[in-house]
């Protein structure tokens, strides 16, 4: 029997702000325990929450990036539960009037090989609501210790129905979502820092059956590929259980990345009754046309729209766009350099093949390096204008420019690398090479044109690579013709 899987994802994204969602104490990661706290975060008696405007605006921006419907009025509810991560014994969240409803995300599935783009499709969203993050529990042998630094960080929960069908789709969805968040300057979505977290629910059913199978929730996945691996394992586990005549139970399972398995955490009967009710301490938020308009003006081009533009306008291949598109800073750098020299393909090649590997070697980010878009544009211009060869650019100029930050033209000048287009200077060198190599010359005269490459190499060597290769080719041919 064939089985099919249905996957729903619940993604939490920390919205980047200076201060917490309901109070002015700062947000951060890796700070001394419990120093990002105040009476509101710790839920001291009498402390009252006041909503952070930036958290709301960034959430509206996310809704627009996700093409959701932004609610006209959104409000705050208390989600009641008793657990040490929540000092108030409730979490302020949104129940029936979330800030964003619906929406969709364009995803790109993995291609048949790394060099080939995979299929694109749209994933429908259910909703996105804003809430406060909770504290972090650190588990030890005999106790657990609570650090409330994370509590109160603005957190957007983005939810899909079980509309994803494969682990690859889930992987592609998370990648696409992360790109949107980075493009919108909402979050870096570093899963290791907890900036993005993901829970999955997954079920399988025999193909042809109408009702969905028993739903299992998976937690503790700490990377995007971890989500994919956990889903691959869990779908196979469920199918094998059913094939072996067993049955599945509704449960929450954890992902153990070191053993590559999911394990039972708790049964659904233990699930919570949150007794949501409107938070009387907080007033509803009305998002009017004017406010919407101001935020909508800040929505950037979406990643895959940019990818299509790069294909259409610059004729870049997927091997290049797949490197540029995920990094909006790199894209802007590329576009600036491409515009400055009007050679987008060459600029893209220099960035992807040379600049990124140098940055990688030195462990630098683009903004930390001395290379600006003007450096790359200048270098490409020097090659295009025949001032230096590609080889000289690679061997003599690029490294120097990367280390010193000097402009390429200045390096070429200082090192005397200017390509020789001077026929008067080149002719005697060419003649000397011809005279010294009668064998290859003979071959050329007999019709083996490839033998000219050897002579060209000799000329380039003699000029330390500075001769214009096209010109040398011409001159050698002319001199040999004369001889023949």
């Amino acid at each position, binding site marked *: 029997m064939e089985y099919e899987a249905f996957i729903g994802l619940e993604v939490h994204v920390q919205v980047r702000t200076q201060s917490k969602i309901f109070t002015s104490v700062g947000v951060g990661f890796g700070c001394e325990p*419990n120093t990002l706290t105040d009476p509101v975060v710790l839920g001291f008696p009498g402390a009252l929450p006041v909503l952070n405007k930036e958290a709301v605006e960034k959430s509206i921006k996310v809704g627009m990036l996700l093409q959701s419907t932004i609610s006209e009025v959104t409000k705050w509810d208390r989600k009641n539960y008793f657990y040490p991560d929540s000092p108030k014994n409730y979490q302020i969240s949104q129940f029936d009037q979330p800030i964003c409803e619906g929406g969709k995300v364009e995803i790109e599935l993995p291609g048949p090989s790394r060099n080939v783009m995979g299929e694109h499709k749209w994933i429908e969203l259910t909703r996105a609501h804003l809430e406060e993050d909770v504290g972090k529990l650190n588990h030890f042998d005999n106790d657990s210790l609570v650090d409330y630094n994370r509590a109160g960080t603005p957190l957007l929960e983005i939810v899909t129905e079980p509309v994803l069908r494969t682990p690859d789709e889930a992987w592609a969805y998370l990648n696409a979502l992360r790109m949107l968040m980075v493009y919108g300057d909402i979050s870096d979505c570093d899963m290791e820092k907890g900036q993005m977290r993901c829970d999955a629910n997954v079920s399988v059913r025999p193909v042809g059956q109408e009702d969905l199978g028993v739903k299992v929730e998976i937690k503790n996945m700490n990377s995007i590929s971890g989500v994919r691996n956990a889903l691959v394992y869990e779908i196979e586990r469920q199918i094998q259980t059913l094939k072996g005549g067993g049955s599945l139970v509704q449960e929450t399972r954890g992902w153990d990345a070191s053993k590559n398995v999911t394990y039972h955490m708790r049964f659904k009967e233990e699930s919570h009754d949150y007794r949501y009710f409107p938070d009387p301490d907080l*007033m509803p938020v009305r998002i009017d046309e004017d406010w919407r308009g101001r935020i909508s003006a800040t929505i950037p081009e979406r990643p895959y729209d940019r990818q299509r533009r790069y294909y259409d306008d610059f004729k870049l291949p997927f091997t290049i766009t797949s490197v540029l598109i995920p990094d909006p800073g790199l894209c802007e750098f590329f576009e600036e350099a491409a515009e400055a020299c009007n050679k987008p393909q060459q600029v893209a090649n220099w960035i992807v093949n040379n600049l990124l590997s140098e940055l990688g070697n030195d462990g630098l980010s683009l903004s930390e390096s001395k290379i600006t878009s003007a450096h790359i544009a200048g270098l490409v211009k020097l090659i295009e204008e025949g001032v230096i060869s590609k080889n000289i650019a690679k061997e003599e100029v690029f490294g120097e420019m990367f280390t010193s930050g000097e402009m390429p033209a200045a390096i070429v000048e200082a090192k005397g690398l200017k390509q020789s287009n001077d026929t008067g200077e080149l002719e005697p060198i060419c003649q000397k090479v011809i005279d010294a190599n009668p064998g290859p010359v003979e071959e050329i005269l007999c019709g083996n044109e490839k033998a000219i490459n050897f002579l060209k190499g000799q000329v380039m060597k003699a000029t330390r690579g500075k001769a214009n290769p096209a010109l040398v080719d011409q001159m050698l041919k002319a001199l040999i013709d004369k001889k023949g």
Partner: protein
Amino acid sequence: MNKDSIDIDYVARLARIDLSEKERRLFSSQLEGILEYFKKLDQVDVSSVEPMAHAFQVENVLREDESVKGFDPETAVKHAAAKRNQMVQVPKVVEG
């Protein structure tokens, strides 16, 4: 017990507290008393009133995103019943 009686065991489980038999009886009747009191609201005719999220019609109470320094760690955990390494110490719990 009438039909609106409180399921005291369920409420206790949600609140993660253990109740003795005496407490179960005491709290059941007290909580039912509270519900009884709230039922007075049912006598008010609200058919002509729009549902609202808040008693005051005030919207968009927002603050600018500016951060200030928080508690020093000693103050933060000063009132915790148990503490270790500047953190609140709780019985070992399974991640929920």
